[in-house]
């Protein structure tokens, strides 16, 4: 697997940085290389937050996301801001409710009810980031499911394991339906 640049954009508190860290952890656990960085712009506090992770089978030189192979935007602001850095032919995933103006471009767009699924099907909107992970991993086929699940379970608060497993599964289901 060559370098894959993944950018998870949302608003502060949606857990995109945690999701990026989990993805990196799971990738490393699966024997890959990964670098997860924080963003340092003013967006680090409020506004459009982003979690970034680069995954590769080879050494990763440049540590940050250059142009995204996978972009997730959970808010309109994040979508507008980051979509310009989406690679041609890349995957762009947006929340279908919060991102009303769908981005246009030479990429494969998935508009999915991520937050709604977290809130209604799983039962807690705060697990939207884990739903996102399920979606991303299923659409891009990054890491074995067991490794990802292990990554999630090792990084979430104790007592929330079942909730997060459910969120991950819900994300995978969303992606499977979308792929059809």
């Amino acid at each position: 697997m060559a370098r894959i640049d993944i950018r998870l954009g949302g608003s502060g508190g949606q857990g995109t940085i945690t999701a990026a860290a989990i993805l990196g952890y799971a990738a490393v656990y699966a024997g890959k290389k990964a670098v997860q960085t924080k963003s340092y712009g003013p967006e680090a506090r409020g506004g459009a937050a982003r979690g970034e992770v680069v995954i590769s089978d080879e050494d990763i030189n440049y540590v940050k996301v250059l142009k995204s192979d996978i972009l997730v935007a959970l808010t309109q602001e994040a979508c507008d801001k980051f979509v310009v850095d989406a690679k041609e032919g890349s995957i762009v995933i947006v929340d279908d409710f919060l991102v009303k103006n769908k981005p246009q471009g030479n990429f494969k767009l998935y508009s999915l009810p991520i937050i709604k699924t977290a809130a209604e099907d799983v039962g807690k909107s705060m697990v939207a980031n884990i739903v996102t992970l399920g979606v991303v991993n299923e659409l891009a086929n990054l890491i074995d499911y067991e490794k990802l699940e292990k990554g999630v379970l090792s990084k979430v608060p104790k007592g929330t394991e079942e909730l997060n497993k459910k969120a991950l599964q819900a994300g995978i289901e969303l992606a499977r339906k979308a792929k059809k």
Partner: protein
Amino acid sequence: MAKKVEFMMGNHAVAEGALYAGCRFFGGYPITPSTEVAERMAERLPQVGGRFIQMEDEIAAMASVIGASIGGVKALTATSGPGLSLKQENLGYAMLCEIPVVAVDVMRGGPSTGMPTGPSQSDIMCAKWGTHGDHPVIAVTPASVQEQFEETVRAFNLAEKYRCPVIVLTDAIIGQMMEQIEIPEPGELEVIERPKPTCKPEEYLPFDLDKDFVPLAAFGSGYRYHITGLHHNSDGFPTNDPVLHTKNTKRLIERINKNYDDIVKVEEFMIDDAEVLVFAIGVTARSAKHAVVEARNAGIKAGLIRPLTIWPFPEKHLDKILSKNKIKGIVVPEMNLGQMTLEVQRVARGRCEVEGLYSLMLDPILPAEILEKIRRFV
């Protein structure tokens, strides 16, 4: 046996490297973006029989680690820009008094409070010349989470071997990012223990001006002696003799300079036939490597010189390449407005063009920007 691979934050890797090296004391003061080093040490030190203390300020933090080292314990402190400024007073003390300690500086934008969360490489000269007077400095520059660990171990080894403070000069991106790391097994990396004096206590000259190196006796070990930040004679007592002052200052600087080959570590990447060099450290070196690979893909003979020791400056390495290769130019990307570039220019002595690529932006310098500079030389 497969090694234990972890996904770890750069600042945590510094802490783990310190523990691996035998560090058993940390004295610190919270400052972004270095605080995770302190947090990890606060949690981990007691588990291995060490002690942590959060001091009342940066100056006290530096003083406390020197005190602990004099007590015979390997000691670490960690800080960032404004804290490095405050630590300079006692860093100078450790230099003159030959006390091994390791100080981590996670570089952020300065001067003053500057950009607390903004990564930077603008303390390069501060690390060298921040404290007053003529003095030697060793500073290592990791560029990955793995190197955060390994270079911290090396920093402790150098501190003990050369009885001096060593600075781990890293940056907010490397410190704050998470990356895979293979934790070495005990014994896998060299760990230098502090030698003990073997002479009779009454014959002990802790600062013997006629010797390159004298083991540092721990306070309480039976060697009673005097340490002072005043210029001193072999026995440690103050002297105003300018001849001795000169002799000791030169001795301290020479101890580092003449062990250049042991201290200075450089990664040379694709330099054998290189016509254009990139000279970079830390996170910028990773952008540079990316750019060099792209340049090679485009048929440009580019190479990278990546110092893992920035002080003493890797001038022998650079000089050797410049005398061997026909170099058209050197690009020096750095996240400041031109510090390392001056040193590269000094060593190049007009043999080739040296061009800095400076940035105060919050993201690393882009490979494309470096590539553009490389192209200008071909």
